[in-house]
């Protein structure tokens, strides 16, 4: 069954320069952390954001928190004070990712 990520996880996102990070946290780690690991690959996240993210996407695992951390490079229009975007710090990127469909 396909569901949006929001049914099993919550997120928070922020910036380091032109890189956006998105933390994805399973509500029920024992049941759903393996689902996140299987479904939410760096390649899928990169494809989901399309040309909004110009650089590579890296993924890190935090099994102790039932969480994944993504780094989206060249994702913020230059970042910080340079970016012309309404969200130059990627504060809302995590919310966007809640809409990605995953198989549970």
């Amino acid at each position, binding site marked *: 069954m396909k569901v949006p990520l929001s049914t099993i996880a919550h997120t928070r996102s*922020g910036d380091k320069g032109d890189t956006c990070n998105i933390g994805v946290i399973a509500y029920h780690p024992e049941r759903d952390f393996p689902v996140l690991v299987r479904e939410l690959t760096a390649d899928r996240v990169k494809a989901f*954001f*399309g040309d909004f993210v110009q650089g590579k996407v890296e993924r890190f695992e935090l099994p*102790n928190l039932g969480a994944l951390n993504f780094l989206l490079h060249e994702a913020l*229009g230059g970042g*910080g004070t340079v970016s012309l975007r309404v969200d130059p710090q990627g504060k809302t990127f995590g919310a966007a990712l809640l809409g990605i469909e995953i198989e549970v």
Partner: protein
Amino acid sequence: MIRIANGQGFWGDWLEAPVRLIEQGPIDYLALDYLAEITMSILQKQKQADPALGYARDFPPLIGRIAKQMRERNVRVIANAGGVNPIACAQAVRKIAPGLKVAVVLGDDVFCRIDEFLSKGYAMSDMDSGEPISSIRDRILSANAYIGAFPLGEALATGAHVVIAGRSTDTALALAPMIHRFGWGAEDWDKLAAGTIAGHIVECGAQTTGGNCQVDWRNIPDMANIGYPIIEAEPDGSFVITKHPSAGGRVHSDVVKEQLLYELGDPQNYITPDCVADFTTIQLQDAGPDRVRVSGIHGRQRPATLKLSVSYAGGWKATGTLVYSWPEALDKARAADAIVRTRLQSLGLHLDEIYTEFLGVNACHGPVAHPNPDPPEVQLRIGVRGPDRKAVDRFTREMIPLVLNGPPGATGFGDGRPPVREIVAYWSALVPREEIKTSIEVLG
């Protein structure tokens, strides 16, 4: 056990938070984090305009408000409010609260040493782009090394009521009292990592007590009176995150997890001047209402380098907006955008970037925004940037005429032409840590 509260997550955070932290219950140390990467750039601009400025101007009046309670309740303040002018900040505090002893941590400012560093062969390439610093050398406005917790601990040892730093790390503000009170050594890597992670959890203030939290956000209690976070730190490195019971908000492991992931890079290598903390060793446990126990943290040896925060002149920018109403609001906004671009092109302006967003449609989420094919209104938002101030200024005259000479139904131009802003851009680089020598100056 000592209680370390954070009452300010950035410069511009809620003014009432630190006051309530002192008034609503026991705390021993009040940490106030004023500096984000871009804040140093902003402060540098202010110092350029007035050499007596360049620090967080909210800070001295805050100390004025809480000075009496600080003395009565024996609460000491640690803040990186000094920005690019910590001595001026300390003097302003002393003027408002003459009875308080203030210690200033100096040595982070390396603006005058860039050429010396270059001559020693330090490339100081940008940690993001890898470009050599020579590409921005003549445009550098400020350069500061990130200072760790040990110099702040030394400042606390002077007995000062207020410790002011410039570019200390955010996490050092919370770690410093633990080093000072528990006598942790420079190689107690696990304990230093634990204190660093405690600092990370509280450094954004209410983001760990229910603010900006997705989990059950509608039901987070009394957000209007949200409490800011308190660390109950133990000498063994374990700690509890909590808040004053009478304050609003929520402290729960789900909330703390969100903050742990905030602005995180490689979780096994969270690098600070004090240690390298491993976020994959953190154990969280809900331990009663609004209490999260944190333990098990491991750390490793600190790096041989320190990070520099460099700001430089990055050109000029402006953002113009107009609102288009239903019907066909998005089509009209798109047509207006195309017209502006055509007109800018025919003017032959030298601009590095023109960036268009349609608020209400795609500004936050770009190509992955939820489809909204017939919005009742759309704000057209066009930003430009470039090296030539005149070109950017010329752009600002191209928005309002569209109300009369573009697609129908435009409004929202009441604020007039948008301002042209200088871009103070950010650069990060590494230098050997032995190059950075800190010192403490005590006032009062």
